[in-house]
C-alpha cells in the first residue's frame, strides 16, 4: 500500500493547506450571508425610476431584513426579481399593498381612460416613478409579495447624490 504511506507523509502539508483554504471559505460564506440577508450594494440603471434614480446608473445600498418581516410599506423603493425574466432584478416603488384599490392610466400618452384595480391578497403593486418609460404592474399586473428581495436604503454613487432616495 505505497500510496497510503505517501498519504501519511503529506499529512502535515495537507493540514496546513486545509487550514488556509478553510479561512478563505469561511470568509466567502460570511460574504454570502451578509449579501443575501443583511445588506448589499446594487448597480441600478435605466429610465424607469427618473427622477429618483439617474438614467446612467447609480449604486445603491439595499437591505434584506425588512421584507422577511413583512415591513415593506407604501412608498418604499423595493428590489424585485422581475416577473417576466427571473434573471433580472428591477427597482420599483411599492404603490399598493394587498386589498388597496388603485386606478391608473392604461396609456398615459393616448387618451384619458383609467383602469381600476384591487390588489389581491399576498400581492403588491409596483410602479416606476417615470410613468412614461417603465414596465411595471401596469403591464404585468400585481406581483406576489414574496418576489421582493430587498428595500433600497440610500444611494452611494455618484458622490454628489449621496444620501437617501427621497
Amino acid at each position: 500500500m505505497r500510496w497510503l504511506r505517501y498519504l501519511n507523509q503529506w499529512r502535515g502539508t495537507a493540514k496546513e493547506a486545509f487550514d488556509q483554504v478553510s479561512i478563505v471559505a469561511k470568509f466567502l460564506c460570511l460574504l454570502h450571508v451578509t449579501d443575501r440577508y443583511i445588506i448589499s450594494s446594487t448597480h441600478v440603471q435605466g429610465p424607469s425610476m427618473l427622477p429618483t434614480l439617474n438614467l446612467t446608473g447609480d449604486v445603491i445600498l439595499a437591505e434584506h431584513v425588512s421584507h422577511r418581516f413583512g415591513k415593506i410599506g407604501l412608498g418604499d423603493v423595493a428590489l424585485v426579481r422581475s416577473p417576466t425574466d427571473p434573471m433580472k432584478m428591477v427597482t420599483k416603488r411599492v404603490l399598493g399593498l394587498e386589498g388597496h384599490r388603485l386606478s391608473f392610466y392604461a396609456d398615459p400618452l393616448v387618451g384619458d381612460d383609467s383602469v381600476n384595480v384591487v390588489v389581491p391578497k399576498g400581492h403588491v403593486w409596483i410602479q416606476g416613478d417615470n410613468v412614461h418609460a417603465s414596465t411595471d404592474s401596469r403591464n404585468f399586473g400585481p406581483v406576489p409579495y414574496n418576489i421582493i428581495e430587498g428595500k433600497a436604503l440610500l444611494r452611494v454613487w455618484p458622490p454628489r447624490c449621496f444620501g437617501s432616495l427621497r
Partner: protein
Amino acid sequence: MGIQNLLWQVTKKAFTGGIIGVTISDRCCSVVPVRGDSMSPTFNPQRNSYLDDYVLVEKFCLQDYKFARGDVVVFSSPTHFRDRYIKRIVGLPGEWISSSRDVIRVPEGHCWVEGDNKASSLDSRTFGPIPLGLIRGRVTSVVWPPQRNCMLALFMVCAFYIIKWVSIQLHVPQDSLWKL
C-alpha cells in the same frame, strides 16, 4: 475565567458552523420535510404525519432558472407570506394549459404548477401561474425514510466501511475517529 473562555469558544464555533450551513443551504442543497398529501403518492404516500418524507432540494437550478416540465420544485407561496409549497411544474413559459373551463397561456417568466394528488392540492388551478422568481429549489430525491431510497442506504453503509478501512490503514486510533 475558564467557563467564559469556553463559552466564547463554543459561540465562535456555532457562529462559524451556522454561517457555513446557511451558505451551503442557499447555494448547494438542503433537506426539507414534505407536509401534507398534495403530492401523494410521490411523497407522503401514507397519511400519518410522523412518517413525513424528507427530500433533498438542490439550488444550482437557481443560477439560470432553466426548468423542465415534470420537475418538482419548492416555491414561496404567491398568496401567503411565509408559506412554501412543493409541487410539480406542468407548464413552462409560453405553453397553453387547459384548466376546467378554458385554455390559459402561461406568460413569459411564469410557470404552471400542479400537485400530483389532484383531489387535495392547492396549486395553479387556484392561484394561477406563478412567477419563476418565486421558486426556491428543485427536488432531486427522497432522503428519509431510508427504505424509500435504497441507493442512499447502500451508499451510507459502503461509505462507513470505506472510512473505517482507510483509517485502519493510516493507523488512526479508532477512538479518535469519532472526534472528526
